[in-house]
C-alpha cells in the first residue's frame, strides 16, 4: 500500500504543470495557498444574514432539520461534520483516511491523479474534503448536505471527496459550493470519487454560486456496479469567471444506470465548459445526459460523450440551449460512440432564441410579452428529474426560482 501512496505522489509531481484538456489555463501561483483556520462549530452559528442567504441559495439548510447529515468546509477548515442517521457516515477526508486503512484503495481510483495540474495540486496541497458513505442496505431518509465555502478573497481551495454507496443502499447528497457574498475571486479545485455498489442508488445534487471572478475546476468520476443507479444533478446559475468540468462515469455492472442533468446560466463575463462522459461497459446499462443552458451574454460549452462498448446498452444525450442575448454563445458538442453492434444511442440538440411562435401562443392566452418570455424560460429550466426525492426536487426548483430575477 505504501508504495501506492508513493506512486500517487510521484504521479502528482509529474503532472504539476500539465494543462487541463479543456477550459482556459489557470496560473495556480496567483492564489493564496493558506487560509486562517476556523474553529469547529458544534452548532452552525458563525454566518451572518447575507452569508446565510448565500448558503440557502446553494441548498444548505443551516438549521439541519431537513438533513440527515452535514459537512461544512469553510476555506480550508472543517467547521462542522456530523450525521443524524444510523447507517450513514459523514467524516472529514483526513479523518477518514486515518480511520480506514482500506480507503486507500478508493483514493484516486476513479479519477487519475495525473490528469492535469488541478488533480496534481489537490493531491500535493490537499486541504480536506468529505467522506460520505451509506452502509449496505441503509436508506437515507433525508439528504446529507455538504458545503464547500470560501470566505476570503483569492484563496485556492483544494478538496478531495469520496462517496461510497454500499450494496443495496440509498444515499442522497446535496452539495452546495459557494463563495461569501463579498468574495470576488478564488480558485476551487474539487476531486470527487463516487463508488456505487451493487444495487445501490446515489443521487448527487450539486449547486454552485460563486463570485464573479472565481475559477472552478471540479474533477470527478464514478464507478457504478451491477444494478446501481447514479443520478447526478448540477445547477450553476450565477456569475463565475470560468468553470470547467467533465466528469467520467463507468457503468461496469450489468443494468447499471447513470443520469446527468445540468442546468446552466452564463451571465456576461462567465465561461462555463461542462459535460459528462459515460462509458457503458456492461449489458443493459443505460445512461442519459440532459443539459439545459441559457446564455444572457456568457459562453457555454455543453459537452456530452457516450461510449457504448457492449451490445444491449441504451444511451441518450440531450442539450437544449437558449440564447437570450445577442452576445455570448452556446456550443453543444454531443458525441456518440458505438463500439459494437446492438447499441441504442441517440442525441438531440437545439440552440436558439425563444421561438416567437411560443411567446405569441402564450400571448394569445392573455400573457404580456414579458410574462410569456419569463414563463417559457422558467419552464425551460424547471426540469423534473425522475428518481430525485421530492424534497430535493423542491430545493432545486427553489434555487432556480431565486435566480430568475437575475435572468429577466
Amino acid at each position, binding site marked *: 500500500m505504501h508504495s501506492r501512496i508513493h506512486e500517487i505522489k510521484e504521479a502528482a509531481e509529474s503532472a504539476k504543470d500539465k494543462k487541463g484538456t479543456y477550459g482556459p489555463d489557470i496560473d495556480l501561483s496567483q492564489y493564496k495557498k493558506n487560509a486562517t483556520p476556523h474553529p469547529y462549530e458544534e452548532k452552525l452559528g458563525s454566518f451572518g444574514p447575507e452569508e446565510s442567504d448565500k448558503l440557502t441559495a446553494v441548498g444548505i439548510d443551516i438549521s439541519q432539520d431537513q438533513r440527515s447529515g452535514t459537512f461544512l468546509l469553510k476555506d480550508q477548515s472543517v467547521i462542522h461534520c456530523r450525521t443524524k442517521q444510523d447507517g450513514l457516515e459523514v467524516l472529514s477526508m483526513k479523518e477518514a483516511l486515518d480511520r480506514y486503512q482500506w480507503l486507500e484503495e478508493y483514493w484516486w481510483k476513479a479519477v487519475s491523479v495525473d490528469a492535469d495540474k488541478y488533480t496534481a495540486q489537490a493531491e500535493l496541497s490537499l486541504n480536506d474534503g468529505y467522506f460520505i458513505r451509506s452502509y449496505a442496505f441503509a436508506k437515507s431518509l433525508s439528504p446529507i448536505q455538504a458545503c464547500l465555502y470560501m470566505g476570503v478573497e483569492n484563496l485556492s481551495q483544494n478538496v478531495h471527496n469520496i462517496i461510497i454507496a454500499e450494496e443495496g443502499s440509498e444515499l442522497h447528497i446535496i452539495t452546495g459550493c459557494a463563495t461569501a457574498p463579498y468574495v470576488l475571486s478564488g480558485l476551487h479545485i474539487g476531486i470527487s470519487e463516487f463508488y456505487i455498489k451493487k444495487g445501490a442508488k446515489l443521487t448527487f445534487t450539486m449547486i454552485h454560486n460563486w463570485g464573479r471572478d472565481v475559477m472552478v475546476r471540479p474533477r470527478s468520476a464514478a464507478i457504478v456496479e451491477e444494478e446501481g443507479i447514479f443520478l447526478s444533478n448540477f445547477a450553476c446559475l450565477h456569475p463565475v469567471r470560468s468553470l470547467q468540468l467533465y466528469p467520467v462515469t463507468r457503468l461496469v455492472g450489468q443494468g447499471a444506470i447513470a443520469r446527468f442533468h445540468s442546468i446552466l446560466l452564463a451571465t456576461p463575463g462567465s465561461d462555463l465548459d461542462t459535460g459528462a462522459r459515460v462509458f457503458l461497459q456492461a449489458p443493459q446499462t443505460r445512461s442519459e445526459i440532459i443539459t439545459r443552458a441559457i446564455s444572457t451574454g456568457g459562453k457555454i460549452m455543453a459537452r456530452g460523450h457516450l461510449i457504448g462498448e457492449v451490445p444491449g446498452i441504451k444511451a441518450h444525450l440531450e442539450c*437544449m440551449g437558449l440564447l437570450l442575448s445577442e452576445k455570448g454563445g452556446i456550443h453543444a458538442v454531443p458525441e456518440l460512440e458505438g463500439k459494437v453492434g446492438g447499441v441504442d444511442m441517440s442525441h438531440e440538440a437545439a440552440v436558439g432564441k425563444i*421561438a*416567437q*411562435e*411560443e411567446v*405569441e*401562443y*402564450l*400571448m*394569445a*392566452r*392573455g*400573457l*404580456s*410579452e414579458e410574462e*410569456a418570455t419569463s*414563463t*417559457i424560460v*422558467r*419552464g*425551460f*429550466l*424547471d*426540469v423534473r428529474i425522475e428518481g430525485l426525492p421530492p424534497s430535493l426536487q423542491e430545493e432545486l426548483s427553489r434555487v432556480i426560482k431565486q435566480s430568475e430575477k437575475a435572468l429577466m
Partner: protein
Amino acid sequence: MLRVENLWVEVAGKQVLKGVNLDIAPGETHILFGKNGSGKTTLLMTIMGFSSYHITEGRIFFKGEDITHLPPYERAKRGIGLSFQRPPTIRGIKTRDIINICGRGRISADDLAERFQFQDFLDRDINLGFSGGELKKSELLQLIAQDPELTLLDEPESGVDLENLQVIGEAIRNLLQKHIRRKRAKSGLIISHQGFILNYLEADKGALMWNGRVHCRGNARELFKHIQEKGYEECAECIAEFMK
C-alpha cells in the same frame, strides 16, 4: 362584434390575403370553408395578432375599437380567443399551467379536465406528443377557461374521433352560448373542412375563402352541401364568373 375591412396580409413575403371583408354581429357564428392554402388560417392568425402575419392594408375592428395594431395579449384581454390548427409545443410548461393562465384564477384546471376526461394531460408539457385529437381537445379546454366573447376555431374537428366529436361539438355549443336564444353575446368564426360542426350547432352564415378573399356568403349548410356535391372546382368557375 368583429369587422374586417379590406384586409391584405403578407406571410413570409407572400401575399396571402387580398382584401378580406367580414362582419360578424354579436351572437353570430360564421363558418368558413375553403381549399387548403386558400388563407383561412392566415385570416384567423391575423385577427389574433400574430407578428409574422403582416398587414399591408386594411383594418380590424373589435367591438368598435380598431385593434389592427394591438399585440395578441391585448386582443385576448378584450375577449378574442383562438383555437390553433397547429399549436406549438412548449417544453416545461404544463397543460395545467396554461389552463390556469387562460382561466386567470376563475376556473379549476382539475375540474375542467375531469369534465373532459383530460386529467392525464394536465401534468404533461403542453402539446408535447399530443395526438391530433388530443391537441384539439387541449385547445378547446384552454378556450373554455379563457371564455372569450369572440371564439376563433381553426379546424376544431380535424382528427377527432366520432365519440370525441360529440364532446367537442357540445363544448363549442357552450362556448358560443348556443343554448341561449335571445341575448346571446358570444360570437364565433369557425374553419371547417368536414362540416361535422354543422351537426352540433346552427351557424348563422357560411362563406368561402378563395385565393385570399371571402366569397359566397350565405347559408352555411347550403354552402357546405354545394361544396360537397360539386367540389371546389365549380366554386372556381362561379367565382371567376362573379369576378368578371
